[in-house]
């Protein structure tokens, strides 16, 4: 009973939040509703007994990813309205639904055919975090390390891409130096 009420409540909230995030023309509304939707999704993980995944969802998405987007938005002019493509709405929505159903069929077909069996069954008497740790650091150790290297690569590429001219401080330069730097930027190609 409680599970059903929680499921329908959070399903409604998540769908409405993501609908707002997709359809609104203001970037600030989009990022706020997206952050709310991420937190509501973690509720499903808690309902499903995946406590560690729910905590990670809140920490990574609402903490790291949303903060990164908020910092990114400061670079862009997000106060103006976002332009939209005005194509055929029936085609867009129809194609989206068809491909979403296809994805679910691809994932769900082996399950419905009951060809699946638990490779790493949940052990009795251990909390979710403990189970996750046991499986992650034994069976999935190599993918874990590869993911760590991938995050390192992403961090370095983020620093290299966004951090150009970070050795220069605009607060310590005077007006002429800043103007001279801007002029040099215009003549030089940033990304070629």
């Amino acid at each position: 009973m409680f599970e059903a009420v929680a499921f329908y409540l959070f399903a409604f909230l998540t769908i409405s939040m993501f609908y707002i995030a997709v359809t609104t023309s203001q970037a600030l509304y989009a990022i706020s509703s997206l952050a709310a939707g991420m937190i509501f999704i973690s509720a499903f993980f808690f309902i499903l007994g995946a406590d560690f995944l729910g905590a990670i969802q809140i920490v990574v998405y609402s903490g790291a990813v949303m903060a990164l987007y908020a910092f990114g938005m400061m670079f862009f002019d997000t106060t103006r309205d976002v332009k939209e493509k005005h194509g055929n709405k029936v085609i867009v929505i129809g194609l989206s639904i068809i491909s979403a159903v296809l994805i679910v069929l691809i994932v769900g077909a082996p399950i419905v055919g009951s060809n699946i069996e638990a490779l790493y069954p949940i052990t009795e008497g251990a909390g979710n975090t403990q189970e996750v740790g046991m499986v992650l650091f034994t069976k999935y150790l190599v993918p874990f390390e590869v993911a760590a290297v991938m995050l390192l690569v992403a961090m370095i590429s983020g620093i290299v891409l966004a951090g150009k001219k970070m050795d220069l401080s605009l607060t310590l330069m005077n007006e002429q130096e800043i103007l001279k730097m801007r002029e040099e930027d215009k003549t030089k190609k940033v990304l070629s």
Partner: protein
Amino acid sequence: MMEIGLNHYLVLSTILFAIGLVGVMRRKNLLMLFFATEILLNSVNISFAAISHYYGDLTGQMFAFFVIAIAASEVAVGLGLLIVWHKKHNNIDLDSMSTMRG
């Protein structure tokens, strides 16, 4: 109706995935496009966690972790590229990125 099964979660995941795909197809601003991809990844995570719960198998949760890691690194690299593009062209609309059009 009152018993929540695997199908409920799969249907919810389908709806969220469709919403994300609608966003990918109709958004022109690249930042909004990134929001839509986050929705796609999250909807898949829900179905992974649900399958993991209803089959008593932890593999689904593991894949959800790796999906989250990939999403985080995608955001870092993507925003870096967006900032570089914005410095050069002063906008982040998809229509301005037509140098590879055939």
